């Protein structure tokens, strides 16, 4: 640079030169990126070709069974089973979380034991265990412990595939929900409770009106993940002949031997259900996200666009 030129203050500013990068590494990167895109494109075409032209898939069979009454009944059972188990999971999990957060050593201990068992054993084992409860506990009765009982049932009458499935999925879900709810409540700033108390709120009101709505923001994303997981895991109860979606499909292909087309039918339904759940998650999150963003006036469309662009960008970067 010509130093003598720099007398005036403005002259000191060296203009920033945007020189195009022409190094070998730069070109290698560009070529690499395009090669990768090409490879993915070719693989996708191959996969599509396989799906469309394969003899084993038999798309007309898929179409035939997709809305068959037996399959639809299975879909409904899967949905109902997931919903009931999720509700049990959320309610019991919430209760367990409160027990875990309490100062009582006894309640803490009970919760720890619960989590230890239900998270430490495979769900499949738990399903089989509940189904075979009758061989372990013969009768279930309500009454005075070790004293007279008022009502009593034969466990075998009580435990159908349905009740075993609900118990297994619900109790297992509760163990996971407990940790999610607990983390959500702990994630709310302590100052919020102090401000509530200083305003004269009772602790139960402060929990209901101030802590819980804020905890929901933290609780909902992992909860919908769990709901999606549960939707899929509910297929495990096919092992106890609970006629949900997978078992309904199995019953058909054990007769017709059209295994692959029917598994595709099941997959299509599972994908539809998980997709709808994900969309629901977006709206619930938006509801509980009130007040967390500065740009409140951004429309839903604009926000989805932003979300999409962010995700897309990260995918491209990874690629």
């Amino acid at each position, binding site marked *: 640079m010509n130093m003598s030129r720099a007398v005036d203050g403005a002259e000191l500013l060296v203009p920033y030169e945007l020189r195009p990068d022409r190094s070998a590494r730069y070109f290698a990167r560009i070529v690499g990126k395009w090669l990768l895109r090409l490879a993915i494109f070719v693989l996708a075409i191959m996969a599509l070709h396989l799906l469309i032209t394969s003899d084993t898939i038999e798309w007309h069979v898929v179409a035939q069974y997709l809305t068959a009454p037996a399959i639809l009944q299975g879909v409904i059972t899967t949905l109902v089973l997931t919903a009931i188990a999720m509700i049990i999971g959320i309610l019991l999990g919430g209760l367990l979380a409160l027990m875990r957060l309490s100062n009582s050593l006894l309640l803490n201990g009970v919760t720890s034991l619960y989590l230890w068992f239900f998270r430490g054993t495979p769900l499949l084992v738990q399903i089989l265990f509940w189904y075979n409860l009758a061989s372990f506990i013969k009768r279930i009765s309500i009454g005075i412990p070790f004293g007279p009982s008022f009502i009593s049932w034969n466990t075998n009458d009580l435990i159908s595939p349905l009740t075993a499935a609900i118990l297994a999925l619900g109790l297992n879900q509760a163990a996971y929900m407990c940790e999610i709810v607990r983390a959500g409540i702990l994630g709310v700033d302590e*100052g919020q409770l102090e401000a509530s108390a200083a305003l004269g709120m009772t602790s139960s009101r402060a929990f209901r009106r101030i802590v819980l709505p804020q905890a929901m923001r933290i609780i909902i994303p992992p909860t919908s993940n769990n709901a999606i997981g549960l939707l899929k895991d509910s297929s495990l109860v096919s092992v106890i002949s609970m006629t949900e979606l997978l078992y309904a499909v199995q019953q058909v292909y054990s007769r017709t031997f059209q295994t692959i087309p029917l598994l595709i039918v099941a997959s299509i339904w599972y994908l539809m259900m998980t997709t709808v759940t994900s969309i629901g998650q977006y709206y619930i999150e938006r509801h509980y996200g009130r007040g967390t963003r500065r740009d409140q006036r951004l429309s839903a469309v604009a926000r989805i666009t932003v979300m999409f662009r962010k995700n897309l960008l990260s995918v491209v970067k990874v690629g």
Partner: protein
Amino acid sequence: MMNGSSNSDDIVVKCVDIHKSFGSNHVLKGIDLQVKASEVLCIIGPSGSGKSTLLRCINYLETPDSGDIIVHNQRIGVYTKKNGQRAPLPGPELAKQRRRLGMVFQHFNLFPHMTVLGNLIEAPVGVRGLSKADARALARDLLAKVGLGDREDAYPAQLSGGQKQRVAIARALAMGPEVMLFDEPTSALDPEIVGEVLEVMRFLSTEGMTMLVVTHEMSFVRDVADRVVFMDEGCVVETGTPQEILLAPKVARTAQFLERLL
């Protein structure tokens, strides 16, 4: 009873021999303090001297180990059983007492999931039992008073620090407190914003609000305080008018503290 009541009438808050320890850390070592009606009492002192703890003991966010907090002749947080023994007040009763003491925190602690108006009507409706319409009218009055009449639909995240703190002050006022406790209300604010919050507090004092203010803003202490308390290591070291404390401290520790501030 007779002789005491005549001159204790205009005493709003009285602390008698308050002790508080956290584990082995003796934070408050016998604090005696009185705040008269319409008085602005400023508490100054080095960080860690127990100022926040004292304020939090007054509305029982912390439970004192011993001593009495008395607000208008009513003991806070404890009651005397029929057999004469003292027992901690049950939660809901304590919550009722706390409505009489407004508190403003250093970090605002606004409810982020509610609008400004929502923040202001939450406790008046849910706790004080006002109708929604009445609570809204009251909230709008207070927002106008703190200069935020046009921001009632904003969420806290959309406000500046100074605006947040003014909302927090309005929120505490909405409960109609007999005394306002301020714990370093401007310490989390950028210097150029501090003034707008102090202005609101100054206005409150002209309206006759009884105030207990922990602060490091010496200009506020000088201009607004009726009395100043200097605290150090859990003790009240010195009490006096702003002139006495700021200009002619009697105790060496007070002088040292003030010197370091300037």
